[in-house]
């Protein structure tokens, strides 16, 4: 799976995620770190929670309130969407490695 497909797959799973399922939710936010290539602190900032809190979530010591989870997922998906857009823009401007034909020399 290439990077774009990985991001799109994660985005698709996020949209149908059962946020009442503790384990599925925890797994999703753990994976967000990898997919977004962010540290725990970065993800905590994105979610506007303390790093301590985020660590407690992923370690199973606490969770966001069930009514807060959709907004947590939404914030993550916003970042995934932004990343996909940035990649798309980058690719079409010639930086993505092959989507735009380049000519070299005469």
């Amino acid at each position, binding site marked *: 799976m290439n990077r774009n497909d990985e991001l799109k797959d994660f985005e698709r799973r996020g949209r149908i995620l059962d946020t009442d399922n503790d384990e599925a939710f925890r797994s999703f936010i753990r994976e967000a770190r990898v997919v977004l290539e962010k540290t725990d*602190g970065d993800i*905590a*900032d994105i979610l*506007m*929670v*303390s*790093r*301590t*809190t*985020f660590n*407690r979530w992923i370690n199973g010591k*606490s*969770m*966001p*309130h*069930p*009514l*807060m989870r959709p*907004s947590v997922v939404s914030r993550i998906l916003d970042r995934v969407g932004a990343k996909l857009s940035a990649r798309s823009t980058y690719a079409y401007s010639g930086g993505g490695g092959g989507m735009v034909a380049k000519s070299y020399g005469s």
Partner: protein
Amino acid sequence: MDNEQAAFFLLQVPPKLADAAHAFHSKLASENPNLKPRKLDEVRQFADAGDLFGVRLGRDGEWVGVCYAVYHEQELEYEIGGMALCEPVQEKGVAAVLTRTVIAQVIATEYPMSYTIVAYVNPDNGDPRPLLKKLGFENIGSVTVTTDSGVMSKDKFTLPASAVRPLSNWFNAFNGVLRDQKTRIETDLDLDVLREVLRAEADKVEML
């Protein structure tokens, strides 16, 4: 224009603003013996962990208040503390909004509530007591606390479950305007989510 007042901005202090928050805290701590002076490294750690909250005049303006919410794993406690507020805003209700919002944020992000929300106050410090009482905190007596300054006696306040309903009611009525009914206070924290969470938790407490 009397009705146009500069808005305050309530924020979770990011690490890049820790030094500025510390400078504000230090100035107030030098004038108030009840405010424990925190070292720069401590404030940086609070901000780094996302435990530090503050209020500024607008998004980028002067600091007017800071406080922290720190989890103590051994005691299963969330301590709200370090409330420092500059004098010109002390009658506007900024501390009440800040403290309520921090408590609501803790309740929304740390589920289930398997911890106690607490505050520790110096025995001779009367300043925070009216606010703590208004928020529903109960004084459960004197405790001995070990700090880097030595062993100290503190009055311990805990927030009972029954305080969640009044907190929820307050958030439902809160329209982003302070006590004077004209000064706005804004935040990036999702107040609608906090309202929903508090309502649900208050219902749950009352069903028990």
